[in-house]
C-alpha cells in the first residue's frame, strides 16, 4: 500500500461521499421536515442521470444537457409531490414506504421502456477532460476534481441557504417541530412542496454529475438510495450537517475499505485467509459502522430533534 494509492483513494472516497451527500441532503430534509419516508428519492438520482445523458446527446454538450436536466428534475419532483406524496403525509410510514416503492418500480421500468435496458455512457466534457499532476506520481483526472468541487460548492451553498435565509430558517424549524411552524402561521404545505422539489433537484444533480464516470442504467438509484439512508441515520435524521459528515465518513470508509481491507488483514492473518475475508469485510464495513452508531446513539451522530 503506497502513499500515492492512499491519496488517490482518499480523493475517490471524498468524491463518492460528496455525491452521497447531495442525495442524502434532500432525503434527510424530506424525512426530517415532513416525517415522510421517500423511497423514490433514489429514482430522482437516476432520472437526473438519464435526462443529462439524453439531453447532452441531443444538444451536443454536457453542460447544456445538465442545464436543461436540472429544471426538469425539479419539475418531476413537484409533480411527484402533488400526485403521490401529498396524500400520504397524514398516513403512516408503512403506507409511504409501499407507495414510494411502487413509484420506484414504475420509474425504473419506464426508463427501461424509454431508453432501453443497456447502459448509456456519456463522454467527459472537453473542458474537464485530461488529468493534473497533484504531487509526484499522483495524476488525478480533472473531472474527479470537478465533482469534488461541485459537491463542496453545493454543500456550501446549501449551508448558506439553510443557515442564512428565511426559507432555511423555516426548514430548520420544520425539522425540529413542524406542527409548531404551522401554528405560527406558516403555510407548511408550500414549505413541504419546496423542500421536496429542491431535494429532488439535488439528487438529480448528483446523478447528472456522475454520468461521465458511471454507466447510466435502470435501477442505478436503488443502491444509492440505501447508502443515502445509511448516511441520514448515521448523521441524524433532519440534520444537514450530520448528513454532510456522515456522507464523507461513509464514502471514505467504503472506498478505503475496498482498497485496503485485504492488505491490512494480511498484517494479522495469512494471505489466503485475508484474500477471502477482505472483500467481504470491505463490503460490510459501512453496515458495521451503521450498526455500531445506532447501537450506541440510536438518534444518529447529530440528531436535529433534542427529544430524539
Amino acid at each position, binding site marked *: 500500500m503506497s502513499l500515492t494509492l492512499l491519496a488517490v483513494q482518499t480523493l475517490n472516497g471524498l468524491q463518492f461521499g460528496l455525491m452521497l451527500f447531495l442525495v442524502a441532503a434532500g432525503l434527510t430534509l424530506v424525512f426530517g421536515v415532513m416525517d415522510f419516508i421517500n423511497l423514490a428519492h433514489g429514482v430522482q438520482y437516476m432520472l437526473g442521470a438519464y435526462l443529462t445523458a439524453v439531453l447532452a446527446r441531443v444538444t451536443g454538450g454536457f453542460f447544456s444537457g445538465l442545464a436543461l436536466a436540472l429544471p426538469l428534475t425539479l419539475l418531476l419532483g413537484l409533480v411527484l409531490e402533488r400526485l*403521490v406524496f401529498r396524500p400520504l403525509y397524514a398516513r403512516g410510514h408503512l403506507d409511504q414506504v*409501499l407507495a414510494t416503492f*411502487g413509484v420506484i*418500480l414504475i*420509474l425504473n421500468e419506464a426508463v427501461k421502456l424509454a431508453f432501453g435496458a443497456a447502459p448509456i455512457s456519456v463522454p467527459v466534457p472537453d473542458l474537464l477532460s485530461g488529468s493534473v499532476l497533484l504531487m509526484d506520481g499522483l495524476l488525478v483526472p480533472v473531472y474527479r476534481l470537478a465533482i469534488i468541487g461541485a459537491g463542496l460548492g453545493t454543500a456550501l451553498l446549501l449551508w448558506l441557504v439553510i443557515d442564512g435565509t428565511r426559507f432555511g430558517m423555516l426548514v430548520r424549524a420544520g425539522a425540529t417541530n413542524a406542527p409548531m411552524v404551522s401554528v405560527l402561521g406558516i403555510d407548511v404545505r408550500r414549505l413541504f412542496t419546496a423542500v421536496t422539489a429542491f431535494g429532488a433537484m439535488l439528487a438529480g444533480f448528483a446523478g447528472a454529475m456522475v454520468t461521465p464516470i458511471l454507466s447510466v442504467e435502470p435501477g442505478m438509484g436503488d443502491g444509492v438510495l440505501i447508502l443515502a439512508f445509511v448516511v441520514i441515520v448515521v448523521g441524524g435524521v433532519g440534520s444537514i450537517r450530520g448528513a454532510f459528515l456522515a456522507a464523507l465518513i461513509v464514502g471514505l470508509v467504503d472506498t478505503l475499505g475496498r482498497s485496503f481491507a485485504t492488505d491490512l488483514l494480511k498484517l494479522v492473518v495469512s494471505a489466503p485467509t485475508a484474500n477471502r*475475508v477482505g472483500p*467481504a469485510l470491505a463490503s460490510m464495513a459501512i453496515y458495521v459502522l*451503521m*450498526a455500531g452508531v445506532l*447501537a450506541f446513539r440510536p438518534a444518529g451522530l447529530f440528531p436535529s430533534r433534542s427529544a430524539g
Partner: protein
Amino acid sequence: MSRTTRDLLILAGIFALLAALPFLGLPGWVLTYTARIMAFAICAVALDLVLGYGGLVSLGHAAFLGIGSYAAGILLAENVDDFFVGLGAGMAAAGLYALVTGAVAVRTKGVAFIMITLAFGQMAYFVANALSEYGGSDGLTLWSRASIGGRAALKDRTLYFVILAGLLLSVAIVRLVTASPFGAALRAARNNPERVTALGYDVDRVRLAAYVLSAVLCGGAGVLIANLTSFVSPALMAWQRSGEFIVMVILGGAGTPWGALAGAFAVLALEEGLSLATQHWKIVFGALLVLAVLFTRGGIAGLLDRSAK
C-alpha cells in the same frame, strides 16, 4: 357472523384450496410455483408477528430465510440428507443469528430499527457471498433433495404437502402466540411501551422473543425453499427480498389473521401473472401498489373489513 368466525372460515378456505390443488390435474409448474409462494408466505406470516403485531419494521428478514437455506444446503452438500436434521439446523441457525443481532436491534426504534436490521441482513448477505467453498456469489446447486426417515429423496408432491404443513403450522403458531398474554404484551408495547413497562414487562425482552420466533419460522422456510429449488444463493438474502416481504405484509394488511398470507399470494401471483402478460409488468405492478395505498387502507384484509360494515 362474528369477525373471528369469518376470519377462521377464510383461513380454512385458503388451506382447503391449497390442499386440493395437487388433485386438480394442473400442470406441474403451477404446483411448484404455488409451493414457492407458500414457502415465502411463511416468511410474510412470520414477519407480520414483529411488523404487524409488534410494530417493528424489519428490513432484514431475508437474511433469516437465507441462513436457513444455507444451513440446509451446506448439510446436503456434506451428504447429511435427513430432512429434519436440516430443518432443525436451519431454524436454529436463523434463531441464533436473530438472538444475537436482535438483542442490539430491539434497543432502537422507528427508522433506526429498520436500518439496523438492514445492516445485520447485509452482513449475512456479504458473508454468504464470501463462502467460496459453497459457491460464493454464484450460489450452490444441490444435487439431491433431503429425505425423510432414510427413504428416497423428497418428491415434488410430497414436498408440496410438507411446505403446506409448514405454512399451516406457522399460521397456527403466530395465531396462538398473538392470542396469548405474551402476544397481548407485544401488541400493547406497539401502542404504548411505557405503560407495558409500568405493568412489569421487560419490553425489550418481549420484542426480542417475538423477533427470534419470527426468525426461526423464516429459517424453516429457507430450508423448504432450498429443497424446493435445489439451489441456494446469496440472492435469497438481498435486501430487496426483505423489502418484498414488507410489501406482502402491508399490502395484505398488517396485524390481521390472514392479511400477510393473502399479501404473499397477491404479490407473487400478480408478479407471475403480469410477467406472463407483458415484459414491462413492473410498471403495472408499481401502479397497482400506488393505487392500493392511495385508495385503500389496511390492505386487502382492511378492504374486506370495510365492505362488511
